[in-house]
């Protein structure tokens, strides 16, 4: 189980998450919805052990997480697909480099990269292209392949398909579903598109409420600065 409770994150004086909680069990799809700026991506980074929260705890398969980023030995157990594929790949890497990098870093056989590329519909002529030479959809396919390369027990899809067309969206969701069925991994699907989440998770959707700015947190003044 990947379990986050009472997660509080502050950037400077700005509180982004206030005692947020989410739980993902193996084999299950959980939807996480919420308006833009409410901290979905931030919570995703906490769950992927990439951001140490100012408060709260994360428990990964029964073990509380104390160390984060490079120091977290079990970080590869949680895969993260980033919201913006353009920013999530090194501009100097080819698409194949993107997929093989985690395999190399963990000394795994590289043949897996070719299988994944094929599974995600990346034709061989795309393998040697760099990010600026491919479309957003093609880049996101490479990012999904990268996230699956190490067979994570939990997969977080942060607005994986927001900027993509319907058929690419359906294809990527189907790939992840196939992965989930094969490995029994837990999936956290993050989106502001409640309909998609309802369909994907079979109604298992949690809303992340926006936090009020600390000063205005008192009574109900309707104005909210997050846009």
């Amino acid at each position, binding site marked *: 189980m990947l379990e986050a409770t009472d997660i509080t994150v502050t950037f400077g004086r700005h509180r982004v998450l206030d005692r947020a909680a989410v739980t993902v069990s193996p084999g299950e799809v959980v939807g996480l919805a919420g308006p833009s700026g409410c901290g979905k991506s931030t919570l995703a980074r906490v769950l*992927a*052990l990439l951001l140490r929260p100012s408060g709260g705890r994360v428990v990964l398969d029964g073990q509380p997480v104390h160390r984060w980023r*490079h120091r977290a030995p079990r*970080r590869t157990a*949680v895969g993260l697909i980033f919201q913006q594929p353009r920013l999530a*790949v*090194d*501009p*100097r890497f080819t698409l194949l480099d993107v997929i093989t990098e985690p395999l190399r870093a963990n000394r795994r056989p590289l043949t897996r990269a070719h299988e994944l590329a094929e599974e995600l519909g990346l034709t061989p002529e795309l393998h040697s292209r760099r990010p600026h030479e491919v479309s957003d959809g093609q880049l996101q396919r490479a990012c999904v392949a990268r996230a699956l390369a*190490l067979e994570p027990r939990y997969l977080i899809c942060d607005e994986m398909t927001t900027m993509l067309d319907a058929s690419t969206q359906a294809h990527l969701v189907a790939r992840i579903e196939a992965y989930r069925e094969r490995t029994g991994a837990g999936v956290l699907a993050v989106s502001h598109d409640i309909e998609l989440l309802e369909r994907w998770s079979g109604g298992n959707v949690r809303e992340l409420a926006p936090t009020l700015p600390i000063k205005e947190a008192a009574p109900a003044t309707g104005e909210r600065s997050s846009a």
Partner: protein
Amino acid sequence: MAAPKTRWRARPETSGRVTGWPARRHRLALGTLAVLVAAVVLVPLFARLDQQLVDLPSSGLAPSWAHPFGTDEVGRDVLLRSIYGLRVSLLVGLTAAVAGVLIGGLVGLAAGTAGGGVDRLLMRIVDGFNALPHLLFGIFIVALFSPSAIAVIVSVAVTHWTTAARIVRSEVLSLRGRPFVDAAISGGSSRARIVRRHFLPNLAPHLLLAAVLMIPHAIWHETALSFLGLGLPAHLASLGNMINDGQRSLLAGDWWSSLFPGLLILLPTLAISALAQHLRDRSSPRHRSESAL
């Protein structure tokens, strides 16, 4: 809340595809450098310079076909000595620039990657070095050694690594926050692996530019130190030594023995600066994406 005003205006034509004079300028610079480097490499193969040779009967001759740059006060051919001098200057400039950028690059990389206390300490040291008047500090360093090329290289590198350190540190800080670094961490990459696979390749163009920009500066320092008699041994043909010698015969009206070595300092430094500017323009993202189409 008012929407932020967006102003649209035509971008000046300085970046991106360059046409006209700037484009020709970098070719001219490249051509000049090619000629100078060829001279420096090839001439010594055919005409050996005896650094100690003195030929008093032919001293102070004005430029002629036999001696295109004239001869100096002890009768040495200024052209041949200038070429040997340029060779020394280019070598010293290049080595000092590479050494300076290596030191600065390592310090900047350590500061940016480690962050926290290490970063603060290293940047305090950089500030300290920058606060010293660098020509004086350079003179102090060469004074510790006997005159030699190594002393000059050490002096220039030790006084000039700070720029590269700052550039590399700020670049690493910006790289560190990028999502692709998060993705690498999430994929199990260690700190060292991220430095090797992501930081160094993305820093390389900046390091190259810093090194190229530093070469002319290093050449000026070499000549300045030699001119002051603190750089290379006085009998060695170096541009600084030659101008130093030449200023004595200047009073006798022998303008050539300092003018030509002076021009040979000016020419490569201007050419390298023009080239560095071209490199900088070319590495701007807009040009990169344009040339990628």
